[in-house]
């Protein structure tokens, strides 16, 4: 099936990032995962995960499907609370040094600070404008001018402004798949989170739309901490600074993307990256 993308009219040049800067671990980690086990009911899917996600960088989670990438990602903003019986059974997850699973944490505030973009784009059945303004209104913003400003800023940041500025009041469902996903990113940006979690944001997009989103992610790195789950090795290589490789619920290797891709220290990582399994 050919999706008629608006983007096809101005084909974006294939996205070629310059060599990613080496990690500088002197900065304190944004998210710290220590000794985490996670279970759905009695079914344990994460085993003893230890990880430090550096701030203002893109961290990619890779691994065969079913290895627990999504699960870990959803731990970071406690989205798993919505699933019956799902729980962190051991270990700690900290956001800037604060335990996010502590009993007195305000989950709502946590989720504002840790935004999320889903695998399947999920714009609300509202206008484009209302989609972006939703988060602000929920936070209590009422001033029209401020909301207008923030909407424009977020849409610009999501590289969508030019395409939609004339039809802000039309339904978000009229956008193409790639535009919808970027709208979801814009929506997440509007509430000014510190961390943005992305769960295979490009899995449903064609290559051109994917390129646009990847470029966007690359630019966002300067202001946000980004964690992206991906299936696509090239994607991880292209747009991430750090890469974590998971296998069967365990973190096998974590390090600078360049190192993981050129010189992995684990056999399994190498096998996976070179496509010997997966």
């Amino acid at each position, binding site marked *: 099936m050919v999706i008629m993308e608006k983007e096809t009219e101005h084909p974006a040049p294939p996205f070629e990032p310059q060599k990613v800067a080496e990690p500088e671990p002197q900065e304190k980690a944004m998210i710290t995962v220590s000794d985490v086990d996670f279970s759905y009911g009695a079914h344990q899917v994460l085993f003893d995960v230890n990880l430090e996600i550096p701030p203002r960088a893109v961290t990619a989670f890779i691994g065969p499907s079913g290895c627990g990438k999504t699960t870990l990602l959803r731990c970071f903003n406690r989205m798993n609370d919505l699933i019956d019986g799902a729980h962190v059974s051991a270990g700690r997850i900290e956001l800037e040094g604060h335990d996010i699973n502590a009993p007195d944490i305000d989950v709502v505030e*946590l989720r504002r*600070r840790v935004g999320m973009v889903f695998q399947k784009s999920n714009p609300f059945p509202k206008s484009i404008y209302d989609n972006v303004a939703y988060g602000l209104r929920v936070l209590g913003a009422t001033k029209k001018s401020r909301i207008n400003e923030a909407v424009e800023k977020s849409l610009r940041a999501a590289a969508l402004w030019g395409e939609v500025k004339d039809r802000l009041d039309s339904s978000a469902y009229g956008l193409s798949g790639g535009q919808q996903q970027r709208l979801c990113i814009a929506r997440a940006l509007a509430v000014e989170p510190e961390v943005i979690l992305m769960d295979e944001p490009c899995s449903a997009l064609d290559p051109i739309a994917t390129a646009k989103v990847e470029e966007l992610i690359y630019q966002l790195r300067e202001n946000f901490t980004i964690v992206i789950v991906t299936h696509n090795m090239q994607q991880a290589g292209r747009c991430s600074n750090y890469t974590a490789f998971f296998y069967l619920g365990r973190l096998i290797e974590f390090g600078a993307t360049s190192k993981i891709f050129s010189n992995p220290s684990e056999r399994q990582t190498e096998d996976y990256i070179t496509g010997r399994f997966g």
Partner: protein
Amino acid sequence: MAVPLPVRRWHADSLIKAFFGSNALIAIVVLALITIFLFREGFGFFGKNLANIRLYRRAGLEYVDILRDSANSHAALSRSLNDIRKRAAATESADTLSRFDEFSTAFSDSAENLNGLVSDAGDKAVALRDALALLIGDVDHSGENSEQGAATPPIDEAGTIAALRANTATFATTAAALDRTIRDLLKTAPSFQDAITKRAFEYWTKKVDGYLASLPATTKKLQAWNPERPVPAYRAVTSFLFGRDWITASFWQDWYGIIPLFVGSFLVSIVALAIAVPFGVASAIYVSEVAQPAEKRFIKPYVEFIAAIPSVVLGFFGIAVVGQTIRHVSQSSFFHWVSFFPISERLNIFTAGSLLALMAVSTIFTLAEDALRNVPRGFVEASYALGANRLQTVGRVIVPASLSGIVSAILLGFGRVIGETMVVLLCAGNRIAIPDFTQGLGAFFQPVHTMTGIIAQEMGEVVRGSIHYRALFMVGLALFAITLATNYAAQKLVARYRMSIG
């Protein structure tokens, strides 16, 4: 800079959750309240019923009823003679007939003394009962139960009972005289030409023998009767659950037995299901397996719409059209061979049942069609792949796979029918009696009263708090229990069916 995560605000969310949760509780609360209020209003029934039965014994009504039974048996024999007379009219000579008339008049006259005895004793017992009821106070009686408790006349209870029991001896002599009279009378009986009439009369004679033989037993019963013998408490329950009479507002004795009502409800439901099940299941199969898509699109909503017809409209239609039609049909010569046609009452079990069938068809169709449609297509395709044709696939694969779904549809249909009020109230004939099953299928063309109908009809007229009022609540409770049990069984079946399909 690390902004600390704020501590959870006790914001409205938990309150909101509690609010919605309390709303969700309402189903449980209502079920509980229904149970509580049916019990609250109904439970006093047993106490009052026990008092009622105790008074029945204490005042000697029970004693009189033993006498009355005997008189009633005699009267029944007289009525049988009338039936024989009707048959004989066609076949016998005028002479035989006139002798027979003489005979039957003499026979019914023979009970004159016995009847007198019953009515005398009855008057005494009723007077005593009314006096005692005023004294005890809490047993309300249909008739003249006024609130002048203070001005009770003195009661000579022992005297009345003694006077009543004196009737035992009288009965013995009356019975002996009766025995003699009847035996003499039998010798004068005319003989009939027609074989059938003859046989009927011989059968009657045998019954008379039986009756005469029972007289000494009755005397014994009278002698054994004791007003002081305590009535066990369980009688209050058993006389309700197994009682075959529902008699209210009678000057004699009220009985609250649910059996005639239950039987009425049950028979109406049986008729409704007997019609609705084949039609409902057949049409469900038709729509899910045979019909064209265009046909489906209009049949389904149409049948579902039948469920929306207000039952009172159906009931009215029954009175205005169906009852009349059924009677006309039963009178037509075409159905002459049916023994119980023509029917006498246009409103009867069958009238109500056939209307309820239409309601049940809608329920059964909808649920059964659902069950059929949910049979995994894999089964069906496998069957076709093995060379079975459509009918075989329907019969051997689809219907068995959805059988428990269909059975639960039928159960729910039953629940709907037995709880239905307006149709039976308007169309079942409202005669409180257990149908005469000796007529075979004819029993289904007799009027009955039902559990739902009796509540609807009598609730508006009873005195609040009276035993009758409480009895109606007990009927409601029984109905509630029956429908809950049906519903529960249906749910269990569906659950099992879901599991077996996977």
